[in-house]
């Protein structure tokens, strides 16, 4: 297992605001990661620091074992596609692609041309006149055709319709299968990317709240639905991350894998089990982390 990125107690402060709070994690080679979290959680900041576009307040960041800042050995091997990328004023998409071809050693022009067709990108219009979705397509095409060893996609799909998003996911997987590389994809559409990403990193209020394989997250939680008393009896002593009730019917989302004994007990009690999607799991985990923080801060006061 090779680590292409190592982050050690990385902190970023903007004045009084702590955007990233002493986070540590590693990124394995040739794995597709989902970097997930709410708006303002610190995802973009982390990616900017890893690509030397932004600066850490403290902590250490290593990419391919080296500091990325002003490092011409490291930077050409990474590509950062950001949602709000700006382009030279009078540039058209072919100008942007021709430039990317100059700087990314693994650039694949054929793939680029094919993606232009796939996304039906108008090549003769200035980038600043493109629609939001077309602008996103320019970034996505650069990110895919650059074939950098590490590619960061920061919410690359803004304004892309469902069909175009699916095209992006399909092409990414296809090309990844032929040219394995490390991809870090930040997204709000968690269930949409759940089948794409192999590992999830969830960041909330500048801290990592989840770092595991996507497979491990399946079956990590289950929702128990049925008679309120029976649900209470079953969930007693378990870690409940969310519960709601409507009249006599209650549902509770519990952490932990259900054993065969559990399943028998549930059947006997007449309770139903519903799977928890990655999105629900992350939403509930994030909410619980926020609740715990509030309680902790309340206790301090």
């Amino acid at each position, binding site marked *: 297992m090779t680590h292409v990125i190592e982050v050690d107690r990385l902190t970023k402060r903007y004045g009084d605001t702590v955007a990233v709070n002493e986070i540590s994690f590693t990124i394995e080679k040739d794995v597709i990661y989902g970097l997930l979290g709410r708006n303002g959680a610190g995802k973009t900041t982390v990616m900017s620091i890893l690509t030397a576009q932004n600066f850490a307040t403290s902590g250490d960041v290593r990419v391919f074992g080296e500091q990325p800042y*002003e490092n011409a050995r490291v*930077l050409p091997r990474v590509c950062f596609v950001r949602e709000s990328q700006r382009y030279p004023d009078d540039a058209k998409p072919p100008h942007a692609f021709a430039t990317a071809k100059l*700087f990314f050693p693994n650039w694949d022009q054929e793939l680029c041309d094919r993606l232009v067709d796939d996304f039906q990108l108008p090549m003769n219009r200035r980038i600043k006149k493109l629609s939001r979705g077309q602008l996103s397509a320019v970034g996505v095409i650069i990110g895919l055709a650059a074939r950098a060893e590490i590619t960061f996609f920061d919410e690359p799909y803004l304004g892309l319709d469902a069909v175009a998003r699916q095209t992006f996911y399909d092409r990414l997987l296809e090309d990844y299968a032929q040219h394995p590389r490390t991809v870090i994809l930040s997204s709000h559409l968690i269930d949409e990317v759940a089948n794409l990403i192999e590992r999830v990193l969830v960041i909330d209020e500048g801290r990592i709240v989840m770092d595991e394989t996507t497979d491990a997250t399946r079956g990590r939680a289950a929702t128990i639905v049925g008679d309120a008393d029976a649900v209470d009896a079953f969930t007693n002593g378990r870690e409940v991350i969310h519960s709601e009730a409507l009249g006599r019917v209650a549902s509770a989302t519990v952490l932990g894998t259900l054993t065969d004994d559990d399943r028998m007990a549930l059947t006997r009690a007449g309770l139903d089990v519903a799977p928890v999607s990655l999105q629900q799991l992350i939403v509930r985990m994030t909410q619980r982390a926020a609740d715990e923080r509030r309680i902790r801060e309340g206790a301090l006061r």
Partner: protein
Amino acid sequence: MTAVTPAAGGGHRVLNVVRMQLINRMTFVWIPLLILGAVFVFSMVIWAMIPYGGPKYSAGAQALIWYLVAVGIQALTLSFPFSQAMSVTRREFFLGTFLTAAVSSVLLAVLCTLGGLVELATDGWGMNGWMFHLDWAWAAGPAGAALAVFAVAMLTFTAGFWGATVYKRFGGLGLAIILVGVGLVGLAALWLVGRLNAWAGVFGWIATAGIVPLSLSLLGIVLVLAATAFAMLRRLVP
């Protein structure tokens, strides 16, 4: 994956930054030529309309100078964020961008000097109209005139780039404070010269020093601005 390991940094990528800046030839080549051409045609028309028989001068070439301020600003505000997306280091971006400006300034200097030579040969386009050949600037010959154009072009580009860097780094207020600061230093210099009763000496130097030392001192200012812009750029977030 057996990735192609790129050549470690260096000159190749700096030259690629030049190509990036020139990839759309509009900004650095066609628009300046268009401005110069238009100004030249306007000057000719105006000269033709003036019945005065003595030498007529056009300061039209300065239109291009103002355009270069805008190019300098855009080189930072738009090209810098894009260069970061292209995984270019700040140093490569800076060197490549200034190399582009230098090459453009050299071409402009050659063009203006050629224009001046033609003016000399045709006695001001047959109308005694002078846009490129200004006696004072040509006191040291064509090479001196070319150096002056180069220095002024570099200074305007660098001033635009420098101002945009300060703005990006310290915001509008920061830029205003720094410009006021520069103004205060200028005032202090004026006061000092007056205090020392040295005005005669200063003007005497400007008048006698000639175009070459003046151009070189402008290039000195370019160096100072470029060096401070680079220091700020090193910590700039796109």
